[in-house]
């Protein structure tokens, strides 16, 4: 899968690049409007991650160009402005999702993967790990065709772990993913723990294997 990052902040580009490369994505970057316009014109991307504020133009103007080139390309807006008008405008222009800075790279990954499943795989493809099967569309988990009942939050957490596997994920990143960023998550950490414990129990009682490891003081790590 091919990603294009349009972002003028080199450190963020570097971070996104190293994260998504390690997850098996093919990554390219553009650090200016003109560079991005050129790349969009010449190549095809599965998903474009677009910063609105660029030194020589606004990412908003790139949306229609991407859409003209390929209707299937997923467009995720990355904005520091958190302005409602920007959000409405960009979604109206044809962007698929909108994420406000500062963001967790894990959250970006969850959004990119969800977008990929929705736009490119049309939600049809199941996800497998070990003998587990996940149907993302109907939100079902099964182990060797035996369905395992998960609450909505446990399912969301599992999906989040899967797109961020082999990575230490902090509790506040999980909380933000589960409850959105309206909520003050400091009070939800205990609840994150409860969900994690239940999920871990359900997975290990089916397979006999512990997938989630607690990293002291840091968060959790999912490996399979």
């Amino acid at each position, binding site marked *: 899968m091919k990603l294009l990052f349009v972002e003028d902040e080199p*450190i963020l580009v570097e971070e996104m690049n190293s994260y998504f490369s390690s997850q098996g994505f093919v990554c390219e970057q553009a650090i200016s409007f003109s560079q991005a316009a050129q790349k969009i014109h010449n190549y095809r991307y599965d998903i474009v991650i677009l910063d609105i504020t660029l030194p020589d133009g606004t990412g908003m103007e790139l949306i229609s160009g991407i859409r003209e080139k390929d209707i299937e390309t997923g467009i995720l807006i990355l904005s520091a402005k958190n302005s409602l008008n920007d959000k409405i405008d960009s979604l109206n222009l044809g962007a698929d999702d909108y994420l406000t800075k500062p963001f967790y790279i894990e959250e970006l990954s969850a959004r990119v993967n969800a977008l990929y499943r929705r736009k490119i795989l049309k939600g049809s493809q199941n996800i497998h790990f070990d003998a587990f099967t996940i149907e993302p569309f109907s939100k079902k988990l099964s182990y060797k065709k035996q369905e395992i009942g998960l609450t909505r939050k446990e399912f969301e957490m599992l999906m989040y772990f899967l797109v961020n596997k082999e990575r230490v994920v902090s509790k506040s990143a999980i909380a933000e993913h589960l409850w959105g960023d309206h909520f003050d998550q400091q009070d939800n950490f205990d609840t994150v723990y409860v969900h994690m414990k239940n999920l871990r129990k359900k997975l290990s009682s089916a397979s006999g294997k512990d997938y989630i490891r607690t990293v002291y003081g840091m968060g959790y790590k999912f490996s399979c």
Partner: protein
Amino acid sequence: MRLLTRISIYYLCLSTIVLGIAGILLYIFLRNEISREMEEQLEMQLDMVASELQGGRKISYPLVDIRSGEEILMRLPKVFKDTLLYDHLQKETEGYYYFEESKKINHKPYRIRVMTTYIGWENYARTITYMFLLIATLLVALGTLINYFMNRSIWKPFLINLRRMQGYSVSSREELQLARTRTTEFQEMNTVLSDLAARGKREYTALKEFTENASHEIQTPLSILKTRLETISQVPLDSAVIRPLADAKQAVNRLSKVNKGLLLLAKLENDAFQDKRQINLRATIIHNYSLMEDVFEHKGIKVNQQLSDYSVFASQTLMDILVSNLMTNMISHAPADAAASICLNAIQLVFSNEGPPLTFDAARLFSRFGKGIPGYKGNGLGLSIVKQICQVNGWIVEYTYKEHRHTFDIRFKE
């Protein structure tokens, strides 16, 4: 008082004064004129009586009085005077006017008096008064009517523009469109208003851009901090580093929350949320509660919900923030196993929960960063955001503590 009413009242006063003066003058002149005519008539009558006498004919007429006498009569002057006579028919005294003159007829002195009635003096006065009252009424009524219609057409552009100004906000995307007028004063006012609106809009845009740029400038370094700290967390760390790193991450988190909160407050003050439509508040509460249900359950807070179907005209984003902030507040401050309730009806939205009394002044509850509770981990903006959202919608939010229950009561406008 409306301008048209005022103008009409001034016009009415002026008309009354002018007509009153005109009436009085008319009465005086008319009276003088009639007096003169009567004097002429009486003089002529007296002259005729004298010539009759000269002819030796006998005069017997009720309103003529003739006395003959000594030479001394001739010394009496000509007299015009008022007198009263009793009218047997109408049974009232009536004003009469008489003229007396001494005349020598056939070498004999005579004193002759002739009289005539004031031909309905009062009738004159009354008729004049009635006439003038009628004229005054007609003048005022027709004048006001004409004034009213003329003013309506003259003031129409002004009134239209007034409405447009009332509905205008510098934060809206539309330009201020003023109705054209041919009246110079209104043209000048339109120019001034358009300038003012344009200046306001420019300054508002500049402020908005500044706020957004400032937030942008802060958000990007924060993004770098956040991602870099997460990257550092990926490598196996010495336990001496873990705690400071966790603290740093938490601080960055709080900083980004505060920044977002302040930005939201700035936008609320600028009334920048224009996505207003009919929002089903009940659905909003149910949706936000379903998101947080597990947290309430985990803390053992039992939430009793009494929600009627009620819609408000507001921004969905703001309603989500309002409801989630009040729920977060409940979760943060209600003790474990507390009973809580959320009630919604057409008059009010009430969030209440059990808990120990506040340890600080309730007035500080809605102020920014005003809590000062040791160990409080929120960003200190949640309730001031709640208050600001209520203000934007013209609602009133009140806090009370009664029977061990904290209550936030939001009253919608009537």
